[in-house]
């Protein structure tokens, strides 16, 4: 193990670790918003099914909620590109 590491170019190791870090950043940032968007849409569907006449208002509010929740995942997406090795 040690002599394998010694033969490897440290630059290559840093590059690989950067790639892993990018994956972890975006993957981690997607967990919370994934759950959150699921909750938002599930509640919106329940509301529309109970009161179909209010579907228009619920849909508008649902898109707003999705937009706010999704922003965090998108920050992670942008951050994954900004991270440099």
């Amino acid at each position, binding site marked *: 193990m040690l002599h394998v590491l010694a033969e490897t170019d440290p630059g290559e190791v840093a*590059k690989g670790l*950067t790639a892993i870090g990018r994956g972890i950043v975006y993957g981690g940032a997607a967990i919370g918003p994934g759950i959150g968007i699921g909750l938002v849409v599930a509640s919106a569907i329940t509301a529309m099914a109970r009161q179909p006449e209010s579907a*228009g*208002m619920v849909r*508008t509010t649902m*898109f*707003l909620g*999705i*937009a*706010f929740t*999704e*922003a965090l995942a*998108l*920050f992670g*997406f*942008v951050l994954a*590109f*900004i991270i*440099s*090795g």
Partner: protein
Amino acid sequence: MIHDAVINVLAIDFPPISHLIEWPSGPLGINKVVVLMWLSVILVFGLMYAGSRKKALVPAGVQNLAESAVDFIHNGIILETIGPDGMGYAPLLFTMFTFIFALNIWEIVPFAQMPVNARIALPILLALLVWFIYNIVGIIKQGFFGYFKNAMFPPGVPWPLYILVSPIELVQIIIVRPLSQSVRLFANMLAGHLLLTSFAIITASLWSLSFLIVIWPASLALLIALTAFEVLVSFLQAFIFTILTAVYIGGSMHPDH
């Protein structure tokens, strides 16, 4: 910031990300993105000019398109968020919606294939415009101290919570709103662009890899499905940007009581 090495997966050469969104500039820094932006301005102006010339009682063709777009802004956005007294903002919101949608839809137009909003300059400009508008509207409608007092101290909150709520609300109206609004538009369009590019490259490469050609139809079908999905995303992001603008203006006009 962005490393330029060609990423090699399964012997497929992916271009570095900077090659997908950066274009060579001509005189005065005019490149493909700028030309597409001018084309969108001309396109939206031309369509709306043609739609508003004849004023037929029963709309048809371009006039129908223009009138249903205006109707969508009136009923789908302004009445749902600001209320009847927000009709004065209809020209702003209508221009914003159609312009952003025209910029986004270049993503799937053959030979253009580049959403203008995948470069962050234009989303930042639009978000700053929105920032100025809702802050100035709030200061005019509620007065300078009234605006910040209503924004930072929402009624119905137990007073110890103001220690937590007030800084958050202040940071939100000053930094977080324009930041999230611009990054949302930019990141959605960039992600869509990368997705379509990845599947196009995979589809093209599978054609030349002998034994992997069995999964080529699946890749092609997914590319077509994702192109259709990006039409939805383009519309949805224009809609969300416009409706957030309307919500911010509405919040500045009618503070919580």
